[in-house]
Structure formats: C-alpha cells, structure tokens
C-alpha cells in the first residue's frame, strides 16, 4: 500500500479522477435534462480520441526516459494514414496488409531518427524536428491535396465479435500500455533504457549497449506512432496528410504530465497513457462549457505547467 502511495502513477490517477469529478459537478445539468459529460457514450468518445495520443505517448515516454525526445509522432501518424489509404484504396490491398505497410513506415521513421542521433550525432531535438518535416512533407507529396477515403471500402457499422470498431483504439492502448509497462519495469531492456537516460557515460562503462538501446527506443516510438496512425485511419476512415497536425507536443506533454522528465531517466509508460487521458477529458469537457471556446488552449497550457510544478513540489517531500 505504501509503495502504491509512493508510485508516481498514483498522483496522475488522482489528478484524472479529480478532473472527472470537477467536470461532472461543473457541467451538472438542470433538473430533468441529460448530463452531457457524465454518460457512457461520452466516455467512449474520450477514450476513442485519447487513444490516438495515448498509444504514441507510450513511445514518447520511452524515448524521453532514454534521455532523448521525439518530435516526429504527429507526422508519422499522418504518413501512416496516407500509406494505409494508398495501399488499401489505390492498390487494393487487404486491410491487414495495408496496416502492416503503415507499421513498416513507423519502424523506418524510428530507424532514420535513431541513425541521425546515434551515428551522425545530431541532438535528438534537431534530428526529429527535421524528420518530422520530411515525413509530413512525404505525406503531402503522396496525396497531392487529395485524401484517401477508406470508409467506402470498410464495412459500415463495423463490429468485431459484437464490439464496435470504435473500441479498437482504447483496447490497443490498454494492451500496449500493459505490455510496455512490464517491459520497462520488469525486463532487462527497460532497465537499460532507464540506465542510459540516467547516466549515459555510466551506462557505457557498465557495458550496456547504449546505441542499441537508443535505437530501439526510437524504433518503438516510431512503430507506436504508426499504430496510432492505423487506429486513426480505421476509426476516421481517412488517409490524409494534414491529420494529427501538432499532436507531437500534446503527446510529449502527456508523457511529461505522466511523470517523464526531459532530463531523462525518469518516467512511466502507464503515466503517459494517464496523461493522455487527462488531456482527452479536457479536450472533451472544455467545449461543453458555454463561452469557454476561446480559452481551451490556454487552459491546457496552464494545466501542463501546474501539474509538473505540483509534481516537483511533491517529489521533494516524497524523497526519502
């Protein structure tokens, strides 16, 4: 119990719960009317859209823990939807093969980023900033101001085993969060990621394969961004070059709010997913407040800063 209390994820869950309670209270309807926030369909909506950020945030957290940063997930998501759209609509491939092509794009994106960082020696920020432009640009060149309409070839009102395809994102997010949470905390690879982010020189002296660990972190980040892209392409029914514009910053913010330190060596995969949900609730609830339309970006910005400052104050007290 004490360990649970000390776990960084605990405070992220507390913030999420407090946030939901606040909006449930604030948006409480007049007598006789339906609650627009507190209903199952709305939570499904929050889950559905948060999962696009959340899946990519798992990868972002891993890269940040390894001491790097990845600015490319938004562009990788967009390029993945475009590649899936091309393969599925233009080339007439089956959906699973198109999705595989999309994931291959993600892996390639991660390999390029890590090559620039590990072999060429560019700072991660610069390398992934450039790579972000390259993938976004490639998506525009492929689509030429058009977009691929997948929905025409997808089954209408698609259910798999009696469950709506809308649940694809949330299910994938939770499964991947579980898998990577275990890999990061219980397996040698995850320990290596923490070690490289904590002290790279020491990792080198300890015989940890630093370059391989860094490469794997960026490849995982690229593939997970591509998974987000697959989910987005299927749920949205589109392959489009300007999808997920600006997502990279929300994805990084999710990881940071979930406890990842940009100095490296600290953070959690589960926290990053919870962080994505915190922003998902905000993005869902704020537009429902009358007159808040122009304030929502500002509020999201303030929330990032408040949560991180709060965490710093708490961790000072928590430290043994």
């Amino acid at each position, binding site marked *: 119990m004490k360990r649970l209390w000390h776990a960084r994820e605990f405070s992220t869950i507390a913030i999420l719960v407090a946030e939901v309670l606040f909006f449930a209270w604030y948006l409480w309807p007049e007598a006789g009317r339906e609650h627009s926030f507190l209903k199952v369909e709305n939570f499904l909506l929050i889950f559905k859209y948060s999962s696009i950020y959340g899946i990519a945030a798992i990868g972002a957290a891993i890269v940040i823990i390894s001491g790097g940063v990845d600015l490319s997930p938004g562009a990788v998501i967009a390029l993945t939807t475009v590649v899936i759209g091309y393969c599925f609509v233009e080339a007439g491939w089956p959906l699973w093969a198109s999705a595989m092509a999309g994931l291959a794009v993600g892996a390639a994106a991660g390999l390029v980023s890590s090559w620039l960082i590990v072999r060429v020696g560019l700072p991660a920020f610069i390398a992934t900033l450039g790579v972000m432009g390259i993938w976004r640009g490639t998506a525009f060149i492929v689509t030429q101001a058009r977009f691929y309409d997948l929905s025409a070839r997808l089954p209408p009102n698609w259910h798999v085993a009696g469950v709506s395809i809308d649940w694809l994102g949330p299910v994938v997010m939770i499964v991947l969060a579980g898998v990577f949470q275990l890999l990061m905390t*219980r*397996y*040698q*690879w995850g*320990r*290596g990621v*923490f*070690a490289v*982010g*904590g*002290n790279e*020189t*020491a*990792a*080198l*002296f*300890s*015989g*940890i394969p630093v370059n391989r660990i860094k490469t794997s972190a960026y490849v995982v980040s690229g593939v997970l961004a591509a998974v987000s892209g697959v989910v987005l392409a299927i749920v949205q029914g589109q392959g489009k070059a300007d999808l997920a514009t600006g997502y990279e910053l929300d994805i990084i913010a999710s990881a940071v709010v979930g406890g990842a330190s940009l100095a490296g*060596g*600290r953070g959690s995969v589960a926290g990053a997913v919870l962080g994505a949900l915190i922003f998902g609730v905000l993005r869902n609830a704020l537009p429902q407040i009358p007159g808040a339309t122009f304030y929502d970006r500002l509020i999201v910005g303030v929330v990032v800063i408040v949560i991180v400052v709060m965490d710093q104050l708490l961790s000072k007290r928590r*430290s*043994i």
Partner: protein
Amino acid sequence: MALLEFHDVHKSFGAVRALRGVSFAVSAGEAHACIGENGAGKSTLLKILAGIVRPDRGEVRLDGDPLHFNRPREALARGIGMVFQERLAFPNLTVAANIFAGRELVQRWGRLDEAAMHARTRQLLDDLHLPVRPDVRMEHVSAAHAQLVQVARALAFDCKVLVLDEPTTSLTDAEVDQLFRVLTALRRRGVTLLFVSHRLPEVFRLCDRITVLRDGACVGTFSTPDTTPEAMVRAMVGREPPERVAREIPAEHARAAALAVRNLSRRPWFEDVSIEVRPGEILGVFGLVGSGRTELLETVFGLARADEGTISVGGATTAFHSARDAMRAGLALVPEDRQRLGLFFNLNVRHNLVLPRAVKHGVARINERAETDLASLQVARLSIRTPSIAHPPEALSGGNQQKLVAGKWLATDPTVLLLDEPTKGVDVGAKFEIHNIIRGHAARGMACVMVSSDLPEVLALADRIVVMRQGRVRGEIAGTAATEEAVMSLAAHESAHSEGPASAGPSAAE
C-alpha cells in the same frame, strides 16, 4: 608472476597522443598504484581496460592471455572489476539496480530477477558494513556511500583484479579509512588491486609498487619502501618543483584590516563568525566538509544575505546585495567548482578572462583590442598553458582551467581575494604554480582568505589559520606555530564534546 600486463599500448585521439607505448605489469596479490598528473594518460588506460576505447597498438594481457577489445565486456567477464568515480552512478536507479546495471540477473526472456539481485546486494552491503538499503535510489545515498556501492558493484561478480579510479576524491578522512579497511580485507582474500590516484599519501599507505605515467609514457615502476613522495612528485612532474616565491609575513597590527567580518551568522550554515585579514596576509580557513566554510565565503561575497553581523572592507562597513556590489568594493571569489561555478565553457579563454572586469566596471561597448591585451597579459602572468586565447576552456587541463578562474578574478584588481579550495582536482605541478600565484599577489599587498580542506596546503600557505567546525570558529593558530595535529584536533573534535546551537544543523546539509 604478472597477472595483468600492459604491453606497449599506444593510443592517439586525432593529433593528441594519449598513450605512447605504455608497458607495465601488475603482479598477482599486490596493490599497485598508477599515478600521474592530469592528462598523463591514466584515464585512457582505464578506458582501454574497460573496453570502451580500443588501443591503436599493443595489448593488455590477463594471466598471459590477451584481452580482445572487440568485446566490450571481456575484461569484466574475465575477472577485472572496476570502481569508477562516484559520478559514474545511476542516480535514478536503486542501489541494487546500480550494482547489477548491465549485468542484471535475469530469468527467461530477460525478465529481471529482482529478488535474487536484492538478496545478493543485501549480502554485499553487509560484507562491506554499509548501512544502505538496496531499494533506495542512488540519488539519496551520500557521496561516500555511493563510492562504496561502486566497490560492491565490482565485487558482485568474482574478481581477481580490482581497479579503482580516484576513489577517494569525494571522501572524508574517516570514509577513506573505511574504504581502505575494505581494500585491505580484499587483499587478504587474494584480490589484486590497481589503484589510480594522484593522492600520494594514500598511495604510499596502500600500495606495494607505484607506476608513474607522464605525457602518455611510463616513467618507471618503483617499489614503495625504496622511494619517497618527493621523488614521486619529481617523476610525475618531470622537473624539480618551482622555487617557492619568497615573501615577508606582514607584522601583526601593522596595517588596518583589509576585510573584517564581525559576528556574522547565516543559520544553519554558520554562526557568530569573526575573522580579519590584513593587506598582504594569507588567512587560511580550515574545516571539514560541512563546517560552513563555503557558505561563509559566499555570504561575504554578497551571494547570500547574512542573518546578522557586519562586513567591513578597508575600514568601511558595507552591506552587499549582490556579487557585483562586493566586486566594486574590491572583493573577488575564486569558487570551488570550476566546472559549474568558475568558467563559461561556451566562451573562449579571452572572454572568460575579461568578463568579471567588464561586469565590475560596467563596460557597455566591447573594446576588442583592450580585451585581447588584458587576456594575453593574464595568460602570460599566470603562465596559463592554452593553445591560444581564442580556444574554449575545454582545451585546457584541469590545472590550467583553475589558473584561468584565478586569472579572471585577479583581472579585477581585487584588494581582498577569497579562494575556495583553490587546488581541488589539480595536479601537483599546477598546484605549485597556483600557490606561487597566491604568494606573489599577497607579497604585492593583496589580502587573501583561502578556504581549503587540504591541510598540507593550508599549513604551507597561510600566515594564520582559522579552524571552523559545525559553523563556528573553534580556534586560531599562527601559521608558524601550526602543526597538523593541532589543526585537526580543533577541526575534528568529537561532536559529543561540542556545545552551542550550531551543532545540530549544518554538517548534514552540505
């Protein structure tokens, strides 16, 4: 019988020849020291041993078989344990995770066996009598314990040879004693030690033989009983140490105090401190780590506000609100940590040298010519060895970086120079030069306050020695009358005998 043997090892980094044919052998069961100034090639040698750097030529043999450098963990796997400096720990991982970093005990598919690692860590820490919990994060472990955790790390897997790289730099004397007890016990178990250090007293205390490196080459291997520390200094430096600059010690009450601090307190760091230094005098402030010395200097220099007490410079009582106020009053502070507090590594030598002077005088427009003249003058005066004044400070050795810090402050023409550990981490040759710089400026009338935990240094330089313990001045000794025993007994008095409110606080906080 040679256990570990370096044979004609060469290594160049670009144009820099770090190692030029180093050969020496460490016999089984002995404690062997490898000493040399900064830049002599010690760290390159260790990196080769650890498999991080591959030599251009030559080989390293263990038990007669050469190590294969294409396999980075070969040395570790073959029984060479390495203890690196405390900064090579993982602050974000637990003690147990630190000990097993890179060599985790795993079950199937790389799943960590936390229980086994925890148990083994517990056992290792108990063997070393280390009161540290295996599940505590390294960032919460004291520097001394962190160093001993590094020893535990090397011992986690059976090792025949234990290599220690400057293991005592962040340890107090008592902690050094504890480390040495552990090392002595290991030797009894038959472990061979290779001790890399520049602290000669420790080398002479622990080691059977000493190999001296200079400029990437072996000067020779000496048997400890047959040599002296002085001979080792000459071997490391390659020349006779420079003559001491002679100077007259100013007579008592000859002139008014250049700096007088009265009843100064800044809790919980120090309390009721009164010191005085006259022009031309060197005042040594000695105390163990945590005695409040650094905080005293920072407060005098205007970096922190005192709770009470007065500071007067040249007879006038002043109140500094910033370092700039203090500089304008004629003070300068050469800080302890040149990496963090002393130098701007993004600026070149010239810009570093002129910056405090420009701040002091509030120069709006930069006069390149004047800057270049001043910088060249300082470089020549302090004989700072730098490729040019346009190079960044990285290009300089530790000792020359330290001279650079001193040079930038001396360029402000201070009347009172405050020095915090002026020769920490500096090799022997540079130490002599820095001592001569301090003496030379004192001879020209500058008042110096030198804080140091290097007792021989304080004894050699100071005209008077003030001893601090737990934030209070515990006594004052004239430099001529001071002995190591007299100073230490004031500095390290058992805290059980001490009285006063300061005894509770500061020692834990620094």
